[in-house]
């Protein structure tokens, strides 16, 4: 490293005269992190999400029982705290804790895939629409309006009903219904930068519209998009759980949290834990994503922080 030995790492990062591009970038990231970490709740959210990821990775090691094979005859509907079953068992005699741990994989799977599908689509549509303008803008935005006109869950229900139940189709349906807000945000951001000097400069240098959108417009939309996607993740989890609850998401014996609540609903009067435990899991993870999203917005988007 080319840092002067007299400087501490912190001073090097916070230097107002960066010596290199890398130093400048790292410095910016560090400032963002400082702003983020000063928000305790946001850090809590981050910890929850890190824990979720770790649990999903190590579910096989952590889970005390098999998540799909139960002991119907001997261990059905045991209350929490029963020996060997920390959170109790469900109506098939399966350990609820093990199912929750394995279910975290499905939850992450849904979130990641939806984010990977919906965010780029929204970004592309919004950036193109905002940059090109004219009838392209009109057509793309009216299509976006059509999707926005329907409640998200209802539209997702319709798609799943047409595609057939299953977790892959549920993901597809959620992705199809969640890109329009991203397109709107990306378009708004694009409109603010499309007439700025640096865009005019790259255009003068002969950059193609394709290159301008991809390299010079889209990066400007990223921060607000990331914030929005993170904040939406709680909603995605709830929609996935809602589809699972209605029997249109993950199919048995997959330990999807929403489906677990649905199967526990029948026992809510006498065996409350069957439906409650996955409900708590959904609550914690949604809360985690919301806190993280809030913190990210404050850190990435200082303009909105005070509002």
């Amino acid at each position: 490293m080319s840092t002067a030995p007299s400087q501490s790492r912190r001073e090097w990062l916070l230097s107002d005269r960066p010596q290199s591009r890398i130093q400048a970038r790292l410095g910016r990231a560090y400032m963002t992190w400082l702003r983020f970490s000063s928000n305790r709740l946001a850090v809590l959210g981050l910890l929850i999400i890190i824990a979720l990821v770790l649990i999903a990775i190590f579910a096989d090691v952590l889970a005390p029982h098999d998540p799909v094979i139960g002991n119907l005859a001997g261990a059905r509907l045991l209350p929490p705290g029963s020996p060997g079953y920390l959170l109790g068992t469900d109506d098939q005699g399966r350990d609820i804790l093990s199912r929750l741990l394995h279910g975290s994989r499905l939850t992450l799977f849904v979130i990641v895939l939806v984010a990977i599908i919906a965010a780029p689509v929204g970004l592309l549509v919004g950036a193109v629409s905002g940059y090109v303008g004219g009838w392209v803008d009109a057509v793309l935005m009216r299509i976006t309006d059509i999707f926005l006109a329907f409640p998200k869950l209802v539209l997702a229900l319709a798609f799943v009903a047409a595609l057939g139940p299953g977790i892959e189709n549920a993901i597809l349906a959620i992705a199809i219904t969640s890109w329009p807000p991203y397109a709107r945000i990306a378009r708004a951001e694009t409109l603010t930068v499309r007439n700025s000097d640096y865009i005019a400069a790259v255009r003068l240098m002969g950059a193609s519209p394709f290159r301008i959108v991809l390299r010079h417009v889209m990066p400007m939309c990223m921060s607000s998009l990331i914030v929005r996607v993170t904040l939406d993740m709680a909603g995605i989890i709830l929609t996935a759980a809602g589809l699972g609850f209605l029997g249109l998401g993950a199919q048995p014996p997959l330990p999807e949290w929403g489906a677990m609540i649905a199967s526990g609903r029948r026992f809510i009067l006498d065996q409350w834990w069957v439906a409650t435990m996955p409900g708590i899991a959904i609550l914690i993870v949604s809360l985690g994503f919301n806190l993280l999203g809030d913190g990210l917005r404050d850190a990435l988007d200082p303009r909105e922080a005070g509002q």
Partner: protein
Amino acid sequence: MQMQIFSRHMRKLTTGAAIALALLAAHPAFAVTPADTLVEGFAIDDIITMDPGEAFELSTAEVTSNTYDLLVRLDLNDTSKIVGDLAESWTVSDDGLTYTFKLKQGLKFASGNPITAEDVAFSFERAVKLDKSPAFILTQFGLTGDNVTEKAKAADESTFVFTVDKPYAPSFVLNCLTATVASVVDKKLVLEHVAPVTPSDEYKYDNDFGNGWLKTGYAGSGAFKMREWRANEVVVLERNDNYHGEKAPLARVIYRHMKESSGQRLALEAGDIDVARNLEPGDLDAISKSAELATTAAPKGTVYYISLNQKNPNLAKPEVVEAFKYLVDYDAIGSTLIKGIGEIHQTFLPKGVLGELDEKPYTFDVAKAKELLAKAGLADGFTVTMDTRNTQPVTGIAESFQQTLGQAGVKLEIIPGDGKQTLTKYRARTHDMYIGQWGQDYFDPNSNSETFTINPDNSDEGKNKTLAWRNAWDVPKELSDMSKAALLEKDSAKRADMYKSLQKAVLEKGPFVIIFQQTEVAGYSAKLKGFKLGPSFDTNYVGTVSK
């Protein structure tokens, strides 16, 4: 201004107090059903019509059997026997073709009109001519719209003569006549309410035989009169003072539509209803522990089974069929998922029917199943799908079966759907496996025997769409022949033996894994006296209940 504000506050206060009072009044502890009324919580959303000539639904069967009379009824003490209802006595001719019923004297409909053999003949005529879902129970005896007035006719005021086309077993004919489609309607009253119809190719008659009016109307003579039916809301029955049997102690019976088990349980505990009819095992368990409540149960003629479509090359192997019978955890399912609402049963005739066979040769045995699968050349297992209706207890059993199959290396994919989706696929024979129930159409062994063992044309165009056909099972000829012969066997004991050997054969070779027989349960207030469930859905009589 001050005054106004004050009065506004006052108004809020008084409204608040009124609401609080109303809430207090509605407190469960004060809720009580009237002393002369029985209130039942019951899922009655299946009712389409109240016309006994058309209705073929479970809830309607109960209402019809309480509000209409039949020629003969099942003997509740021994359901393989028959007792007279409107009929005083009956004789069967030596050739087994003619049945002559003598009616009891001096009976009246609820309307006050006398009950005559004319009314019986008219009831048969309209059921056959309307040709709705339950009409086959009568038309299988050779009745058609053209000959019904000849084959089912009144010889005189009190003699009804019924002619069948083949010398059937008399027990079969009489059992079929206990079905609600043979209920006797008040001819005079119905004829006052017929609506004109333009004859067409499908329907050749110029009137609807009162079908439109009877949809919500009533023209019977049973222990109760049907006063009102509001779809998905309520059915109200009122005591019939002209009833020929013992008069009902209660003046009214109200069936309130309640869909959810937990809702029924809460209403029963609060005293809003006297009987809860659609309880799930958990709620039933809780009710049985309460001192003020009681439960009752009766086996019903419905069996739940998993069937293996023989079009699937893997499932067509006899070893696989046998292996699957060893891969259901009967004991665990019996003691948990269907506890109280069903009993493990492996033969196709439910308990209580003539010829029942109570044999359970199969137990959960993974080693044995693996051995059989290896013999079939499928030691490494295979993947197969099962269409499953998303209602309990079917889904629970499907999930349990998925786990136990997994232990033998067979991967089961559950394809969920609502009743219509799964049934449509099943009837089109495009499934691999199907889990569902089969309820008897009428209280006779032939109803199940026919569907499980007769398949005259195994092509996709087959007309006789029995369960054997739906699963593409080419039934061995000797089985079909025996099933047909049993229908004509006059000696009841011999007939029962034939059904027993048929059941043994299906138990061994048939592509049906029969799991349990349904038990109907009800939770009721301990204040009720004489509340009982019958052996079939049309023998749940409420005429004996008192408070």
